[in-house]
């Protein structure tokens, strides 16, 4: 676990939840608010260990629910399910390709709201859903998909600028030096 990256991920989640509750432009323009947590979870699950995934699911879910009318803790499990599924296959996923990031972001952004709604309905709540919720779901999926490669690029930039870079090995070896001297 890279502690700096874990801290950065949690700070990003904190700011993402705050931005979603303050910025109403996407809601006014597109009719739905875009959720950045599923895309962040995809990045975390592909690049970090399972404990960072668990930490993001718990703290991100609690932060989201504390600012929402959702029952506190209802978003934790959907985020964890997505994180777990992605992390279980992270060795097989081509995480550096933007298209893969886009598709993974789309799948996660589509799955998380559906799972949250299932939990809400099972808990006897009455969320505001109808046929036009399909449009909102599409907006959330497309928005989350578009945001995921940006999240990957942002963390790659942070890693380049804030993290330690591995030293590159050179081919120079002093014991293999060829001495070109006429006197020898």
């Amino acid at each position, binding site marked *: 676990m890279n502690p700096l990256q874990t801290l950065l991920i949690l700070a990003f989640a*904190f*700011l993402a*939840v*705050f931005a*979603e*509750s*303050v910025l*109403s432009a996407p*809601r*006014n323009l597109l*009719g*739905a*608010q875009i*959720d950045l947590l599923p895309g962040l979870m995809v990045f975390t699950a592909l690049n970090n*260990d*399972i*404990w960072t*995934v*668990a930490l993001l*699911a*718990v703290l991100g*879910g*609690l*932060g*989201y*629910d*504390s*600012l*929402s*009318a*959702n*029952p*506190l*803790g*209802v978003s*934790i*499990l959907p985020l*964890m399910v997505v994180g*777990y599924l992605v*992390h*279980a*296959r992270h060795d097989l996923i081509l995480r550096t390709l933007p298209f893969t990031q886009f598709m993974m972001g789309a799948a996660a952004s589509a799955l998380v*709201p559906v799972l*949250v*709604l299932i939990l*809400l309905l099972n*808990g006897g709540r*009455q*969320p*505001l*859903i*109808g*046929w*036009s*919720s399909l*449009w*909102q779901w599409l907006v*959330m999926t497309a928005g989350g998909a578009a945001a995921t490669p940006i999240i990957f690029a942002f963390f790659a930039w942070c890693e380049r600028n804030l993290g330690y870079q591995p030293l590159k090995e050179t081919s120079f070896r002093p014991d293999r030096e060829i001495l070109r001297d006429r006197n020898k």
Partner: protein
Amino acid sequence: MFKRKNYLALGAVVLVAALVLSLPASATSRLQLVISSWFLPLFGLANATQRLPADLADNALPRHELLQMIDSLRRENEQLKVGAIQAAATRRENDQLRSLYDWQRQMPWKLKLANVVMRDPANWWRSVQIDLGSRDGLRENLPVLTVDGLVGRISSVRLTSAQVVLLGDPNCRVSALVEDPAQDIGILNASGPLDSSLLDLTYLTGEANLKPGQNVITSGLGGVFPKGIPIGKIVDAQPIEFGLATGARVKLNADLGALEKVWVLFP
């Protein structure tokens, strides 16, 4: 794929989620208060940033424009004062008549101004948070309105903030009265998740004869909203349930998508 560490992490998260979801209401609200307080500095920063362009524009406003505005506000203030004197006389007369008939006295509304600090990030709820809380005397179910009309009601109160569930949310149903000769009464429900300005008025009788443009106000039934708060106007109406009932669509007076300041009403 199936590592023990992964199972452990999944189990731990399931346990935490189950624990949080099964907490009693008081513990949940305390935990929610603690977590949402982490965001307070950011909300302060966001408010200051939002005010900055307006402050800059105020500073750049020419003096003659300011004087014109003061002049027009002074005139408006005088008109309102005359209106208030008239209203006071009417209220006295109304009180006298009510006492003659032994009717309950109508109390004047007490209002408190609040700033909207955030909207619900989830798309399936229609709620906002305001910067007044229990220390300002707020309690659950107080009506919230703007100068245009009703907005919603207080659904939960914390020390320094409160959650307002807006009209159109499934948890905010309002008994509404149409200002037509028959004084038809119905229940205001959400019409859909996308358009927050249109609501469905249901449970109207089959004989209701509604016309577009008729005013809709709170009926006072239900005990939450006092009678007479403007809500909106009828857009259209059609018979439903094989003509046994009438359904109508109501265009709200208040713009729920652009709420910045609201009034909390203490009846």
